[in-house]
């Protein structure tokens, strides 16, 4: 079926202004995807304001020159600079200036200055069943899976084009029939103590992403809600190792009260029975450093730390002085709460480097030391840090990350799967 634009959409698409450019980008993408029409959206989350090079800045400025403005609520994902001034970004001119121009351009387009990859914990939570256009792989998977709103994985530039036009291609996860599960990911063979541990979720997410790719699956065998931060970690890891845009967890996520309700047919196309051996292998695969004697830094907060995660961090540090820094990445929504009760000062006095508006894998923050070793509890950081920072990674729980930062060498306390 070929794409049919409404007369209004057609009239916009032939214009030479910013709105015309945005409409052509949405329509071209819709054609590529085989969407029959465009649909209205309720909100957008924009991943396109992160500086990867001058081309993205020039694009945003072209939209502004053309008088474009967002038509729906639009939050911003991280940028390349810490506008709150918490951490020092080692981005040099002229890149620094171009990154700043880019962030400024998205503000002028009418986007909210949220600067976080966890907008869903910063007050942007679209209603279940509503159509939205979100970018940033972890935000997309959370929005679909945990909130039950409907979005595809919108790439950089299509997100802002959808926000300006207020429309998105009608295909993929916007259609209820495409949200049904075809695979079962059964974790009932794992020990309850492992499933209750913090590392279970990033490790299982990483395994899930690798096993299912871009298929929709339902996780079976989870008893009790693991908490929103666990689902955040699971989705972020799954969307790093695979092309996961939506997962279901039977009895936990809103579209899957049970396995039968969410399955596309009477039987799943495949059942992945997760064994402790698969988990051990997935966990080992998150680390690239081979038996290092020292740890140079710890990075946490991908996705951005919630207020509850800062509580855990502060409890684990317990006022001790760190031997190596913990880079704690977060959004200004959480920072505001930390400032209020003096906790930011206490954490920084221990040796925590708070990073706001951005994070350590998207912009140069950590020292360029060559052969550095970074410990993290984030499946997403574990995935991207080696390529983006040059540090080898060691994956561990938050508790082990904190102990390792205190001692300056890796500490592991295993919880067997």
């Amino acid at each position, binding site marked *: 079926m070929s794409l049919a634009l409404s007369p209004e959409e057609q009239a916009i698409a032939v214009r030479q202004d910013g709105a015309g*450019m945005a409409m*052509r*980008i949405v329509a*071209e*993408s819709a054609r*590529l*995807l085989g969407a029959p029409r465009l649909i209205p959206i309720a909100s957008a989350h924009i*991943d*396109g304001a*992160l500086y*990867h*090079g*001058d*081309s*993205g800045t*020039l*694009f945003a400025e*072209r939209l502004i020159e053309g008088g474009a403005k967002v038509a729906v609520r639009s939050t911003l994902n991280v940028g390349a600079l810490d506008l709150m001034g918490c951490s020092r970004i080692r981005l040099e001119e002229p890149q620094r200036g171009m990154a700043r121009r880019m962030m400024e351009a998205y503000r002028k387009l009418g986007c909210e200055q949220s600067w976080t990859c966890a907008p869903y914990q910063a007050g942007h939570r679209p209603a279940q069943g509503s159509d939205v256009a979100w*970018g*940033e*792989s972890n935000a*997309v998977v959370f929005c679909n899976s945990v909130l039950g709103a409907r979005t*595809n*994985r*919108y*790439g*950089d*530039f*299509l*997100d802002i084009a959808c926000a300006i036009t207020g429309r998105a291609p009608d295909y993929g996860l916007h259609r209820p029939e495409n949200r049904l599960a075809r695979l079962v990911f059964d974790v009932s063979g794992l020990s309850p103590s492992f499933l209750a541990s913090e590392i279970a979720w990033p490790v299982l997410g990483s395994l899930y*992403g690798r096993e299912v*790719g871009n298929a929709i699956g339902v996780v079976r065998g989870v008893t009790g809600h693991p908490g929103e931060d666990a689902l955040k970690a699971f989705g972020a890891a799954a*969307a*790093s*190792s*695979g*092309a996961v845009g939506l997962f279901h967890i039977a009895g936990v996520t809103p579209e899957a009260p049970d396995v039968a309700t969410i399955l596309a047919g009477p039987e799943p196309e495949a059942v992945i029975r997760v064994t402790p051996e698969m988990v051990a292998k997935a966990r080992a*695969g998150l680390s*690239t450093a081979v038996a290092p004697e020292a740890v140079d830094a710890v990075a946490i907060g991908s996705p951005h730390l919630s207020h509850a995660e800062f509580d855990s961090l502060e409890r684990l540090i317990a006022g001790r002085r760190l031997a190596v820094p913990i880079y704690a990445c977060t959004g200004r929504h959480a920072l505001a709460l930390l400032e209020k009760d003096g906790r930011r000062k206490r954490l920084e006095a221990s040796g925590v480097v708070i990073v706001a508006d951005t994070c350590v*894998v998207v912009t140069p923050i950590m020292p360029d030391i060559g052969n550095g070793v970074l410990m993290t509890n984030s499946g997403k950081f574990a*995935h*991207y840090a*080696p*390529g*983006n920072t040059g540090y080898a990674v060691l994956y561990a729980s938050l508790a082990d990350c904190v102990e390792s930062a205190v001692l300056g060498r890796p500490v592991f306390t295993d919880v067997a799967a």
Partner: protein
Amino acid sequence: MSAAAEILVPGKAGEGETLVLTAPISFWGGVDPKTGRIADVRHPQHGEVIAGRVLFLPGTIGSSSASAVLMELAHNGRAPAALVLHEPDAILLLGLIVAREMGWETPIAVRLDRGAFDAYRGGAATVAADGAIAAAV
């Protein structure tokens, strides 16, 4: 070896040494936007450079910033000579769609079943403006 492939995004016809990826890749975090070098240490083709190559992609994963990386490569003149994808990837190809809107030269992107990729390994190939792929002999 030759095949007629469906055009996903029209662009400049390409010719170059082939690079057939054996695993899906995330362009963001996986490819250096300045040089086109594959930076993902876990990727089997880590260290290879995609600039100027006829790039065969069995699949793409990961970040929604893949489009930004491909657009930056096109803007820098470090894009592949042509892209051959097993299936259309709306995130990656958006980089080409937006670069075209900006008036920058972009390589052609076509679709070919990944089962046919092997025939193009270890040589050069051309992708014509009509989407025809041919191995150079």
